[in-house]
């Protein structure tokens, strides 16, 4: 069996929000990538941003400063 890992998942209300975050993170060399929303989370948009749990504060600060929108941040085992 695959070993589950603790992961940061950021969810979005719209695909546009997800795309904006992807572009912003790429432009600012912030960690993570787009994955489908894991089933244990309910979110508006089926896309989410996956990163390591330790990046949570850094991402939250950067996204907030950049004026980007998201729904929620979760740390889950996947």
């Amino acid at each position, binding site marked *: 069996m695959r070993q589950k890992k603790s992961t940061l998942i950021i969810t*979005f*209300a*719209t*695909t*546009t*929000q*997800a*795309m*904006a975050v*992807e*572009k912003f993170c790429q432009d600012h060399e912030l960690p993570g990538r*787009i*994955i*489908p929303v894991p089933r244990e989370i*309910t979110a*508006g*948009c*089926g*896309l989410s941003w996956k990163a390591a749990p330790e990046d949570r504060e850094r991402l939250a600060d950067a996204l907030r400063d950049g004026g980007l*929108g998201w729904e929620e941040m979760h740390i889950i085992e996947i």
Partner: protein
Amino acid sequence: MIYLDNAATTLQKPQCVIDAVVRAMNSMGNASRGAHSSSLSASRVVYDTRCKIAKLFGCSRADHVVFTCNSTEALNIALGGLFVSGDHVITTDLEHNSVLRPLYRLEKEGIISLNFVPADVKGRPDYSAFETLIRRNTKAIVCTHASNLTGNMIDLERVGRIARDHGILLVVDASQTAGAVPIDMERMNIDVLCFTGHKGLMAPQGTGGLCIREGVEIRPFKVGGSGVHSYDKEQPSAYPTRLEAGTLNSHGIAGLSAALDYLNEVGIETIRSKETMLMQRFYEGVSRLDGITVYGDFDFERTAVVTLNIGDEDSAIISDVLYEDYGIATRPGAHCAPRMHEALGTTEQGAVRFSFSWFNTEEEVDEAIRAVAELAES
């Protein structure tokens, strides 16, 4: 063929636009409907294009750029979703049926009352009327940026100031100017800008949209699949999803994206000055001929359109002869702008419209002048 019907649609598109559509059709899935690479590639292209459109038109938020299949759909969404019972709306005699018919329908349904800013015989709007027509319940001014019939532009900065001073919305039909004339929603105080992709933007047909100022609420006109919030019974409320039910024309949007790159590379000002030069050259060539009536005002800002009649000849016949005998494509008849024809006095005769694009040449213009001269003589 010499194609001078660019106000209807630009026939020649930059090669990069064609290539982008072909590439997209080989690689793009459904935007916003998955996280596999083909769906994501569509989502990225669509998002990127929103950013470019927002930048081009001075829309402060890329997520307030909503894609539609043309400006008719954008106008229907805007006009159908902005007004409530009892609202008063001001529009102008210059408008196209895609503004008029949605407004007439709302008027007939008893939702809005409607007044028109009149145009004179040269097709110029009476600017003082924008202000004198305003009432306590006026919700919006809806107006075109340029007449598709005469090419005359409306001074949007001036109208925008009036709208702002009275706290009413300004909704603009930019079908004739998007891509061909600089537009800045901030400077012009535009609340909703409706555009189509297939004319001045030189993008594929089936692209267009609306740019919405932050804080302006438009109710959705169609509801359905959005790829997000799938278990909600209502259409998601966040823009752009709120107004974008259904699969987008991502292949076309990929073409629009390439067209925007092309426009930025060449520069809208460069394109505008070439088109204006061609229009001016044609105007000077035909206006000195006997028996020619040219419509509109040539002393004010205008798009690359010259509309004329020869004597009292049926415009449809003239346009047909131009095509059959000279290989010149123009548009005759009524141009979906009934009130403008009334103002110009051309409801019976129609008028022959010559409209120029970035890809036309001076030689083509000169041939068109020669053709008109021959027809005027005969």
